[in-house]
């Protein structure tokens, strides 16, 4: 299977309701390999729900998700998990399991429930931990880690899967500035290596660095395009109730966009 086909995730008129409330409404999108996409929107816009639908964790009321051209529901669970990694918003992970074993879980789809870790698995785990700088607490119990350290551990878990599709729900939660930067760099690096990366971003300044921006409002996809698209920026500001304006900053690699809070 070519990298292009394996990395392609499509949503076709996705619809999903909870308790009579339409949470995801007629969302159609396609994630291309090699692209880092940020998903933004106000609280309650349905970002996490959309991500979970794309990961196959909910069954949509209508529409479907295609992974490499094949409906997600038709994929055997393990094969789907090899191609698609998902990280939840609030890492509810707690317990006495140590860091390196958490990251090792990312290899579970490759090993299967009964398999033993191979040299490939161990290399992937080490690389993922180095990527988030979580190697120093590999031997520490999860319950003794700080919020940021745990978040990096869980991120490594998602990265260790080395899947062509990477879905991350607010990966920058709890991270300080250097680790946010490291995360953005590694998302870009994953995308350049051919992965389709979709991350729900709370921090708009980080989101504006993505290759592509998806703006969700009341469950509907109201804008989809590169961050420098003027119409998209207008939509973005409107959706967030004019709480900020978007300004251009000159930089060494061309213009950069920042969200400036409006008072």
């Amino acid at each position, binding site marked *: 299977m070519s990298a292009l086909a394996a990395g392609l995730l499509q949503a076709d008129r996705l619809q999903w309701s909870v308790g009579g409330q339409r949470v995801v409404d007629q969302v159609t999108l396609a994630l291309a390999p090699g692209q880092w996409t940020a998903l933004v929107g106000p609280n309650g816009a349905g970002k996490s729900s959309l991500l979970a639908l794309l990961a196959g964790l909910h069954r949509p009321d209508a529409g479907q998700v295609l992974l490499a051209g094949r409906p997600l529901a038709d994929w055997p669970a393990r094969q789907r998990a090899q191609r698609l*990694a998902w990280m*939840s918003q609030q890492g509810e*992970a707690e317990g006495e399991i*140590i860091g390196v074993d*958490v990251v090792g*879980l990312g290899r579970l789809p490759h090993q299967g429930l009964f398999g033993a870790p191979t040299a490939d698995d161990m290399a992937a785990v080490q690389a993922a931990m*180095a990527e988030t*700088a979580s190697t120093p607490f590999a031997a520490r119990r999860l319950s003794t880690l700080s919020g940021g350290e745990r978040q990096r551990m869980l991120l490594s878990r998602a990265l260790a899967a080395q899947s062509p599709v990477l879905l991350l729900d607010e990966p920058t939660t709890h991270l300080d500035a250097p680790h946010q930067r490291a995360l953005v760099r*590694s998302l870009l690096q994953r995308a350049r290596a051919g992965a389709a990366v979709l991350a729900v971003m709370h921090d708009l300044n980080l989101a504006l660095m993505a290759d592509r921006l998806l703006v969700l409002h009341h469950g509907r996809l109201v804008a989809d395009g590169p961050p420098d698209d003027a119409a998209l920026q207008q939509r973005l500001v409107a959706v967030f109730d004019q709480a900020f304006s978007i300004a251009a900053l000159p930089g060494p690699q061309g213009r950069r966009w920042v969200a400036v809070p409006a008072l």
Partner: protein
Amino acid sequence: MQMARPSSRLFARLFARLFARPLLTAWRLAGLLALLALLGIAAGLAAGSEGWSLAWHDDAVLIQAIRAPRSLGALAAGMLLGLAGALAQGLFRNPLADPYLLGSAAGAGLGVVLALAAGGALAGSAAMPPLGWLRELGLVGAAFCGALGGVALTLLLAGGAARPLQLLLCGVVVGVLMGAASDLLLLVSPEALRGRQVFLLGTTGFLGWPALGWLAGALALVLPLACWFGRALDALVLGDASARSLGLRLPALRLLLVGLMALATGTAVSQVGLVGFVGLVAPHLVRRLVPVTHRALLALSAAAGGVLLLAADVAARSLIAPQELPVGVLTALLGGVYLLVLLRRQRGGR
């Protein structure tokens, strides 16, 4: 900070940490527990109603007929309870979960009361003295069926094992309902009360070779299967959604693990009654001593549970010899004190 690429210095530090883990590793703990089990067995063979005796030859008959199966049986029953406790705590992601929480205790109680009441009615009508061994076998079977029946009813009410919270609540409901049914039956045939008390108090005194056979058989079935599927419990640490995203068929796996837990608990309850705290404390002890994944945790918890119940059994026989304490009272006492110490330490910041 160097985050983008692996740094050899960091790895050197990682491996130094991994291998310089203080004192106990999983393997060393396993060796320690095996040694303790051997010591416990030796003590169990020596502990008689007239104090400890090392005259193996003179006591050969006693040892062969009574002390050996009893000591080995206590070890096996403790192993089943420790394993069931580790399964429960992993399944419900709750360090306070114990093997009895899905209705198996109340189910076993109801089973025993039913059997006793039916036996009493039968004996009354036919005026036939019930045969000792038949009666005992009937009670063991009734307790076993009751325990599994309790868990099955819980699963039925919860609509499967997909929602853990639902399962826990239904376990409570089944416990209350079956307890009430037992109480009602006891009103009709009060003579069953004593029998239930004796049977379910938690005692290793009835363990013979056949009992050991059942316990060992259950252990041989449940322990390898539990360890084999134990990796799923590691994934559950990350939460249900993450475990599913890793490609696990969670409802089926949960059902299987609940079934294994019920089988382990039911077999133990039917042979030694309701021995408390072993299933709760054993996994705690292991987790505190070594950080392990669930495969090792399940096996080590079984070993720790076996050692705990064996030690309690030897103590129950020796402390007020020639009298005997019910082992369940001892484990409750020891377990309670252990948890208290643990709580105090946690309050004091370890």
